[in-house]
């Protein structure tokens, strides 16, 4: 093992949404930062445009990592059967690996959570078998950091249209995208139902911003890297800022293995494998884990020692529990005219009235139309279920209807289950010999009820918009996680039921923080990245002020 000379004050593991923000803020605040990322550069050249191997349709592979050297074990909650999976297989719960993490190839819907998303337990009560809890902080604590993220990352939207939220302190830095033809149709439907609509805020430039050009409205946005660098994530904002400060070293191909502690259990630093497979040990005053909700839990659980036999931060058996993501009930509507105008990125019209206050169910979701879907995704996921899977009729259907179908869908706020969890597999290791994650359990049944309710609302909306045929798959009980993974190191005042405190510091370890979606107590009825970034700004400020 080599000992890296340690000029660093802070080590950040993972250069994704949260880790990138924390590295940038700390480096600019004068800290010397080491940013470790297991992946590499995610741009058009490295991620390409293979319609069958990408982060949107991973039929045979992914384009934004990780590689096959990162297996996981998945346990089917129904049969108890355990299988070892590659990152592109169903059940793996992949997001991405590389500079920017998910934000390099994401869709960039930039939603704030709703004030009640932070108070789920006191709003609805805790259903039997659920670990539902309130956040230790509220919307008001995060609002200034949401605004900072919107400005520094670059979000296009209309603040005055966000009728479900308290008034914004400042407008979005860019105007929203124009309403698409599909959006016009959906708006007519919503009007007929008396539902107010919103243009979804997107972290994509609608005008030159941050030194990057305006979006060219291409058809390969979600799941792919932007061809002109107008999609904003941590890879083209806070990480370059960290590097420009001269105080941040970014090491790619660096696979963090475990946290190192002294006899008393104090965090000393991190051990990682560098790109040549050499094990390196590095020290710092503060460590921030931001590997995403599944890998961060793995790092804590793998950091066993005599002082911490169950891993670090896991004295109360909380690390890895409450794994959440988003059920995404989807209704597809077939219309009698072309709906798609050929322009990206896609989501043009949202409805937020079903986030809360729905009779008979807990929570809810935002509903919206979707990003541009490739022809093969339309074939695999959006075709009429009554269509034969081969022959002239199938071909004719695609030719006639590719531009006539549209989806309405939404990220359902999940009701957490303590049994939906990340543990360490006792047998399987990765190519560095590090024990891999074992995913098991399922969400709480209330999630399925809410998702079913939301599917019905999506169907209702498409019907009012004039769809001639509508279909969708009824949700059923399963383990969530995936691209919206969260919850495995949740915040809380009480160490018995949480992993970090209200500043995302691991209970009992004043120099160890969690900087990614792991800390979400619940995951909101909205896409999560802006909340992850807002929390990361807040955590970085806390570190700056205390170290």
């Amino acid at each position: 093992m080599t000992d890296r000379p340690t000029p660093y004050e802070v080590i950040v593991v993972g250069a994704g949404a949260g880790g990138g923000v924390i590295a940038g803020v700390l480096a600019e605040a004068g800290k010397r930062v080491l940013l470790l990322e297991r992946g590499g550069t995610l741009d058009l050249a490295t991620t390409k445009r293979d319609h069958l191997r990408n982060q949107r349709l991973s039929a045979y592979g992914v384009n934004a990592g990780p590689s096959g050297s990162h297996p996981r074990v998945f346990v089917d909650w129904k049969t108890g059967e355990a299988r070892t999976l590659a990152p592109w297989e169903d059940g793996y719960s992949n997001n991405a690996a590389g500079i920017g993490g998910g934000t390099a190839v994401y869709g960039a819907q930039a939603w704030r959570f709703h004030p009640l998303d932070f108070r789920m337990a006191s709003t609805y009560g805790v259903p039997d078998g659920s670990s539902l809890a309130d956040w230790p902080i509220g919307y008001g604590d995060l609002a200034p950091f949401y605004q900072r993220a919107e400005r520094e990352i670059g979000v296009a939207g209309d603040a005055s249209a966000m009728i479900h939220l308290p008034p914004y302190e400042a407008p979005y830095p860019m105007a929203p995208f124009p309403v698409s033809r599909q959006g016009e149709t959906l708006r007519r439907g919503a009007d007929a139902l008396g539902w107010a609509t919103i243009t979804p805020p997107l972290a994509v430039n609608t005008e030159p911003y941050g030194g990057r050009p305006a979006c060219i409205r291409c058809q390969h946005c979600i799941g792919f890297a932007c061809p002109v660098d107008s999609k904003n994530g941590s890879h083209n904002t806070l990480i370059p800022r960290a590097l420009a400060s001269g105080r941040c070293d970014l090491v790619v191909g660096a696979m963090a293995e475990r946290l190192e502690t002294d006899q008393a259990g104090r965090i000393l630093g991190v051990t990682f494998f560098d790109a040549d497979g050499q094990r390196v040990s590095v020290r710092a005053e503060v460590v921030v884990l931001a590997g995403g909700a599944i890998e961060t839990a793995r790092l804590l659980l793998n950091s066993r020692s005599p002082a911490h036999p169950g891993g670090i931060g896991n004295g109360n058996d909380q690390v890895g529990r409450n794994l959440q993501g988003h059920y995404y009930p989807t209704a597809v509507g077939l219309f009698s005219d072309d709906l798609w105008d050929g322009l990206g990125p896609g989501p043009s019209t949202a409805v937020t009235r079903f986030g809360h206050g729905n009779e008979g169910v807990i929570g809810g979701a935002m509903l919206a139309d979707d990003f541009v879907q490739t022809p093969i995704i339309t074939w695999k996921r959006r075709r009429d279920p009554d269509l034969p899977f081969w022959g002239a009729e199938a071909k004719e259907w695609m030719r006639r209807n590719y531009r006539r179908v549209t989806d309405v869908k939404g990220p359902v706020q999940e009701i957490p289950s303590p049994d939906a969890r990340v543990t360490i597999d006792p047998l399987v290791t990765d190519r560095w010999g590090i024990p891999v994650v074992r995913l098991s359990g399922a969400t709480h049944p209330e999630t399925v009820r809410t998702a079913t309710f939301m599917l019905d609302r999506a169907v209702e909306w498409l019907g009012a918009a004039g769809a001639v045929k509508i279909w969708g798959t009824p949700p059923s009980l399963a383990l969530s996680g995936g691209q919206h993974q969260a919850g495995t190191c949740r915040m809380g005042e009480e160490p018995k039921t949480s992993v970090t405190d209200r500043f995302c510091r691991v209970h009992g370890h004043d120099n160890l923080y969690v900087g990614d979606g792991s800390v979400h107590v619940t995951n909101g009825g909205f896409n999560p990245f802006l909340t992850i970034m807002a929390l990361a700004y807040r955590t970085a400020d806390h570190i700056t002020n205390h170290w």
Partner: protein
Amino acid sequence: MSDSEVLSQISKQSSSRSTVLAPQQIVCLSAVLDRIIPPDSESAGGSTGGALTYILRHLEEGGNLAPFRSVYPVFLDALEADGFAALLPADQDKMLGGQERSPDPAARRFFRSLAEHAQEGYYTSPANWSGVGFEVTG
């Protein structure tokens, strides 16, 4: 075209080179693909529209369909034993319909997979994108 003409054409096309399928099996596969995605006046069928090229390329080592490399030849030989490639389209459809509804679940599953591979090859081939209305502008 006679079978021998098709065969000689296939062996000339580099896109049709295969270490997994023999020329005769490729002729049969082409015929199958043209029933899964039939050619018509507006657009190519499976054999010339990208599905054949995709399947042959991806049956090779490291390809998307490599796990299927031992089943394809067996399936195609069985069809060819009944002279599939020379049948009229309607009779070919009947034979494939028999596969779709076969009492043998493995046969049903394989036919479903093969049809899906054909659609993957066809709809990921840029030549077919504007035909459905997916125009790439940037």
